[in-house]
């Protein structure tokens, strides 16, 4: 009998970045590669458009770019599956794998990989839309179905190039997205300036979560002003069903939520990961101190913090002593 694949000790998060041609995917990925604090593998379609500071480049062989910060960027031109198989076979595991869907590709089909590949866990599907073009593309008889397929696959929508439209244009773009993917959080950006923490909110695995809090405080000051950080700290443990309801109803301005929490019906800590509307809970190999600490990233919506806290509090099981603070950072 042949051995199957060994079950990896930790599953590597997978994020799929989609969006129609020109929506800003490459700009986003360039930012991610240059600013990453983890060891990322980023698989891209247009390798030639990857543009990182020369000082960051350790090695470049035409198909793979190795950066001094540990990140690797691979061209998908050699074939999608062959490239991904090479990345998955790298001896040193990555903290995060990010795959760029092509400009006409379906990011949902790529995300399915994480449903069957035991080494991967889907962190989320992030789909960018060009604020100026998205209403026209949605109505285009040639392209409307391709765009709709992409938008509907999103866990988090990024309405990019916000600076190129006036208020009416912005509303039209938001209406288009809402009609195609109702309830999916939409974050507006200029030059795809999404906070890096949407991908890596204080470390990717349990080993990093311990120092996560301190890192996040430091990171927060560098945030774009369009985003705020939310901190939720409470004693007590969550009722699982109530927590699931709370997470399903989170405010649309919430982009990202991550942290450690206890569940009333299970021993041990659990790691919550949420990107847009997609979330997962996985057990951590450490005892539960009967407390929760969650960090969120949201658009500058003054209601986001109170709404988040209210929803989570309702799922928290007494007895709990509210000693937590709620910090908003500019």
């Amino acid at each position, binding site marked *: 009998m042949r051995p199957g694949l060994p079950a990896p000790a930790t599953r590597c998060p997978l994020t799929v970045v989609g969006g129609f*041609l020109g929506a800003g995917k490459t700009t986003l990925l360039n930012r991610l590669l240059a600013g990453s604090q983890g060891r990322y593998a980023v698989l891209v379609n247009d390798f030639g458009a990857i543009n990182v500071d020369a000082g960051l480049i350790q090695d470049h062989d035409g198909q793979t770019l190795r950066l001094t910060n540990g990140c690797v960027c691979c061209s998908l031109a050699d074939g999608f599956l062959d490239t991904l*198989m090479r990345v998955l076979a790298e001896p040193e595991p990555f903290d995060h794998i990010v795959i760029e869907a092509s400009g006409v590709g379906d990011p949902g089909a790529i995300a399915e*990989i994480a449903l069957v590949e035991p080494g991967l866990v889907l962190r989320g599907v992030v789909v960018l839309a060009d604020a100026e073009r998205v209403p026209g593309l949605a109505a285009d008889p040639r392209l409307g179905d391709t765009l709709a397929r992409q938008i509907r696959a999103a866990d988090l929508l990024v309405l990019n190039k916000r600076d190129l439209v006036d208020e009416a244009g912005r509303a039209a773009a938001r209406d288009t997205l809402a009609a195609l993917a109702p309830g999916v959080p939409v974050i507006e950006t200029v030059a795809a300036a999404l906070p890096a923490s949407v991908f890596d909110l204080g470390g990717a695995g349990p080993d990093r979560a311990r120092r996560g809090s301190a890192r996040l405080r430091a990171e927060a000051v560098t945030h774009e002003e369009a985003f705020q950080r939310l901190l939720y700290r409470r004693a007590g443990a969550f009722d699982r069903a109530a927590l699931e309801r709370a997470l399903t109803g989170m405010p649309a301005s919430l982009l990202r939520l991550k942290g450690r929490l206890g569940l009333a019906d299970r021993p041990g800590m659990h790691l919550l990961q949420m990107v847009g509307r997609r979330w997962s809970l996985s057990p951590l190999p450490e005892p539960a101190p009967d407390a929760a600490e969650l960090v969120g990233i949201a658009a500058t919506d003054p209601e986001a913090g109170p709404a988040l806290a209210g929803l989570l509090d309702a799922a928290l099981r007494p007895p709990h002593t509210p000693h937590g603070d709620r910090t908003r950072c500019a």
Partner: protein
Amino acid sequence: MPSEITLFEARRVITMNPSRPEATHIAVHDGRVLMVGTAEDCAGLDAVPDRRFADKVILPGFVEGHAHVMEGTLWRQTYVGAGDRRSPDGRRVPGLRDIGAVVDRLSEADRSIADPDQLLYGWGFDPLHLGGARLTRHDLDRVSTTRPVMVHHASLHITNVNSLLLEMAGFDETTAIDGVPKLPDGTPSGELQGIAARLRLFRGLGYNPMSGTLDAADVGRFGAAAQLQGITTIADLHNDLTDATVAVYGAACVEGLPVRIVPALASVSCPPEDGVARIGRLVAANTERLRFGIVKIVVDGSIQGFTARLLPPGYHNGAPNGLWYVAPEDLDRIVGIYHAAGIQLHIHTNGNEATEAALDAVEKAQIAHPRPDHRHTLQHCQMATEAQLRRVKALGLCLNLFSNHLYYWGDSHHDLTMGPERAARIDAAGSAARLGIPLAIHSDAPVTPLGPLFTAWCAVNRTTSSGRVLGPEERLSVAQALHAVTLGAAYTLRMDHCVGSIEAGKFADFAVLDADPFETPPEALKDIPVHATVLGGRVFAVPPA
């Protein structure tokens, strides 16, 4: 001292040269035609007579303008398709018409593979020709429960595996993706589709059996399989052309290989600016047997896979529209760059919406950068409307139609994908000929079997595998079809000055037939045996089937 002149004599020479359509003698010198004519015309030559084809009919060597070198790679594996084929070593490999026969052929192959762990890989399976019968893991478990077994469909998009390989890939009743369908008992059927399922399959195997570096033997099998069908020039119409592949081609395309090969650079493998530079370097290394210079762009998927892009009213059975493999605006940009650089494009468009996008792109490129005689060619172009064909003509495009589809998927197009009206004008060669569009027809091997006489038979008869005639108005005459598989195809490859007809100065490339296609009933065109080929004056025998 000059090399000698050989004077081939035939019962009839069909030249495809309109000013000298027929002859009986061909004088060959240094690999090229010195003179075509009668015995009397050639009497003054100091030539060595060669009468071995004296009772045969000689045509220009056939030109297959759209095939893939994968035809050579796949013959390493076990053919389990529905149509008869000839393997590169000349064996006739009968088509299989039921699941039991597929299992038997695979079991035979299983016994011949010494390594008990080596993958057994079948290819060419097509359930449409087995009355829709499905292949399940239980069938493949009858082949082996201890060796991984995998069967690729003719479409290359669906794979069936045995239970062992399912287990290696980690698929079981808990697997929850569409690409891993289940049997009524909740276990996977063994059919796998889509990138997620395929990734796990390859991860389970430990490698991707569909990729890997081309080697000289693959090119050799590709050439040998083509030669058996009378082909002397063949395009490998989608290739990444890595340095390693180019080196393999360079080493393989030498004296002894019975064909000239025309590899097309796959546009998807590099940005067009890099592609222009690569073509420039490759062309400098062209030889008489290996000719780089063309670029292939794939715009949409396939009609039978419901991935072709269709204009309204869309798919006959209501399936959603297919997939763009390149966005129309990107197509404009890519076509524009190659066109301005003087490079010839071969653009795959199956559905008529993809054809429309390609026409728009070429029109914009022509307006921005007028270029005479560009000969960009729409490949497949199976659903083009009459109005689109008029644009094809007006824009100076060529067509290479996928006539083999008429036989292999014609019934499916009639019943499912297009309905009776549109299926009747699929691969509308008759319209193309009436409009005077430069025309070739092709097999897309390994998707369908290589065989220009079969392809010509499809275009002449338009008979489906069930015997239905699809659109008799779109039939070609035998003369038109033979032109399409010789000079017509040569024209689409920009090689009509050196191959595709038999005339003084051109390469001495011939297809030698046992019977005269003009004296054969059109419905028997495909059955004419190819006796031999000649490439550059050198004779290559075809073993009897």
